[in-house]
């Protein structure tokens, strides 16, 4: 009897522990809790820089002060770690309530799997929906439904060192591709690294390939791929790759560029060792962060749009860009959606714009833009007749990865532009 009781006790304890483990963890917040009771939601972003981190914390604190029943739990992770962690959470089926997203194909995958909350009713036809240009809001929608909102939508442009260009005899940035190549050659003779590229991360290389394809083939080239009338093996994409080979043969890039990550690439510009980089609107911020003096090259920094390719079908005003926004997880309470509205409203958007780290989306928020370079980028975005989202976000993750990987092969010289294009097309077809 005594042994039976001992056995039963051990079995009961084991069972309780096992049950506890299997039920613990994960969120237990219901979808739309009443707004008067205590509400908690999670907020994930990737701005690890001190001033940016403080900005988001300040915003959350302000919101919590105005809504005492709301509690916001912030998680900050570095870019690559963020992407991995969110992907894991998605697979476990419990997404964060608000998380940084670039829209496009990756967000579409989440929406298709039912992991995002449809916030169309909050945006369509409401005052919130009128705070931004429709094209910009559309980046965070899928199949007609809204799943998030942006607060930053910029363009990829050249960020260059005016002093180093002047030493090579250039007081303004070239506007045609052949002039650009001449400038690169002249820069090399002055002993400076003409272009810094973080091709270890692969997406910076994709920027070059995308812009060249856009300049050569224009919007029709990309539309044709989507409609099936064209392919990635069409001339604009192959010629874009060929121009990259020309650029690499000139020795335009830094030593070891195939292994350089974003920080290393930005450091070269920030320390005045490379004359330029082709980067998004966060370029100056990353350069400053990674520079030895923590400030970058300051007034010596200039920005310019991607040059035109002579004889190409694309316009010089076409823009490759993207931005930042937040997607809404399927379990998010109404308070989270309301906080998102707070984040993207004109006042807060303008405050963030004043830090010079974003190109604001809210109409009227560009009044907060003080940095003349950022104003230039906003001007470039506003004039764009054709706005193309970064290719690795625009297409599905599989195709996006294939583009990044194969473009790196072009830079490395291990694949010809035609082979790379064929590989991309193959992945695209397999994922249709």
């Amino acid at each position, binding site marked *: 009897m005594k042994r039976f009781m001992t056995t039963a006790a*051990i079995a009961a304890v084991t069972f309780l522990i096992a049950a506890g483990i299997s039920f613990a963890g994960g969120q237990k917040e219901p979808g739309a809790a009443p707004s008067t009771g205590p509400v908690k939601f999670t907020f994930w972003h990737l701005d690890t820089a001190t001033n940016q981190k403080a900005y988001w914390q300040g915003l959350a604190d302000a919101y919590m002060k105005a809504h005492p029943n709301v509690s916001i739990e912030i998680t900050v992770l570095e870019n690559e770690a963020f992407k991995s962690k969110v992907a894991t959470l*998605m697979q476990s089926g419990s997404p964060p309530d608000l998380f940084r997203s670039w829209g496009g194909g990756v967000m579409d995958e989440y929406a298709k*799997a039912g992991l995002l909350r449809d916030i169309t009713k909050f945006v369509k036809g409401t005052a919130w929906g009128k705070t931004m240009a429709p094209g910009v809001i559309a980046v965070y929608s899928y199949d007609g439904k809204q799943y998030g909102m942006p607060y930053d939508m910029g363009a990829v442009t050249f960020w260059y060192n005016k002093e180093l260009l002047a030493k090579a005899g250039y007081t303004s940035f070239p506007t045609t591709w052949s002039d650009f190549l001449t400038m690169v050659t002249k820069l090399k003779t002055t002993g400076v690294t003409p272009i810094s590229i973080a091709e270890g991360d692969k997406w910076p290389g994709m920027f070059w390939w995308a812009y060249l394809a856009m300049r050569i083939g224009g919007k029709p080239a990309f539309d044709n791929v989507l409609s099936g009338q064209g392919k990635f093996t069409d001339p604009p994409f192959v010629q874009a790759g060929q121009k990259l080979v020309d650029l690499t043969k000139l020795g335009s890039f830094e*030593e070891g560029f195939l292994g*350089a990550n974003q920080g*290393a690439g930005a450091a070269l510009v920030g320390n005045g060792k490379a004359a330029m980089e082709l980067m998004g609107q966060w370029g100056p911020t990353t350069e400053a962060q990674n520079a030895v003096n923590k400030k970058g090259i300051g007034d010596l920094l200039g920005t310019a749009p991607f040059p035109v390719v002579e004889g190409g079908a694309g316009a010089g005003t076409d823009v490759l860009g993207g931005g930042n926004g937040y997607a809404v997880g399927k379990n998010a309470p109404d308070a989270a959606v309301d906080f998102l509205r707070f984040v993207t409203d004109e006042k807060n958007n303008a405050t963030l714009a004043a830090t010079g780290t974003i190109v604001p989306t809210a109409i009227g928020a560009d009044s907060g833009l003080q940095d003349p370079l950022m104003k230039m980028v906003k001007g470039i975005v506003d004039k764009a007749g054709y706005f193309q989202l970064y290719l690795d976000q625009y297409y599905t993750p599989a195709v996006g*990865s294939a583009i990044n990987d194969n473009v*790196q092969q072009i830079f490395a010289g291990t694949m010809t532009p035609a082979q790379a294009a064929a590989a991309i097309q193959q992945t695209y077809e397999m994922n249709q």
Partner: protein
Amino acid sequence: MAYESSIVLSRTVKKRRRATLFTLLLLIGPAFIVFTLFVIVPVLQAAEYSLFRWNGLGPLTHFYGLRNFGFLLRDIIFQKALLHNMLIIVFSLLVELPLALLLAMIVGRGKFKLAVFFRTFFFLPFVLSEVITGVLWQFIYNPQYGLINSIISFFSPGNPGIAPLGSPTGVFWAILIVIIWKYFGLHMTIYIAGLQGIPVELEEAARIDGASNAQVIRHIVLPLLATTIQITVFFSIIGSFQIFDIVWAMGRGDPVNGAETMVTYLYKFGFQRFNMGYGSSVAVAIFVICLVFSIVYQRLLLREQRG
């Protein structure tokens, strides 16, 4: 009387056996449950997922049969990854283990003053986490500011230096050096323990008979160290098949898959591309390779021990 006592005796024996069995189940139970939940079940799940085309989100819907394995065997990048794993094994067996053994003999039995210090010193790289090691060596290899290039430009100013992690062909060797650097200390420590199990009298007897150092090593040390060496070879090979963290922390197997291994391939082409079915097939392939190797290796050893 004898009959009754024999019944009592057998009942006691049965009770003791039941008690022993019960204790055994209680002690093995938790480990068995954990092993089943975290090893057996995931392997079976991976085998299931590998038969589907699945993006990792939502239910399994698109049955694919063995097509994932077909793609896998034909993919040149996977073949490259497998080759890299084989090269890591070859160099571990030809360079890392002999180096560890040599150092073990010098430092493990040496009577010189700093012997104990060096034992700890050589073991230190193993203590670092793989990610810290990766970050550390990225600094060492950095083309602009790294330690190696700083030394090069000190002795030869104006020299562009080397950029191993940016070279499609060099990145593999750069990482191989780091792998050897990191793990040789572990094998050395195991060999030191093994060496200390060799009775000193045997060596003394051999030396009295006039044996040279080389002969002592060849006829006494190595044969007695055989089991230890077999164990380190086994773990080295299994570990080499599964190497991931160090490669990932030093460039994720790129540029252009220059240092790709089977597990980085799994992560990139499965996980990152939202292609979990394919990733699972890679996992099953790695599992089968390791399993076959383990069985063959142990059979080989058992046959040797018997014969």
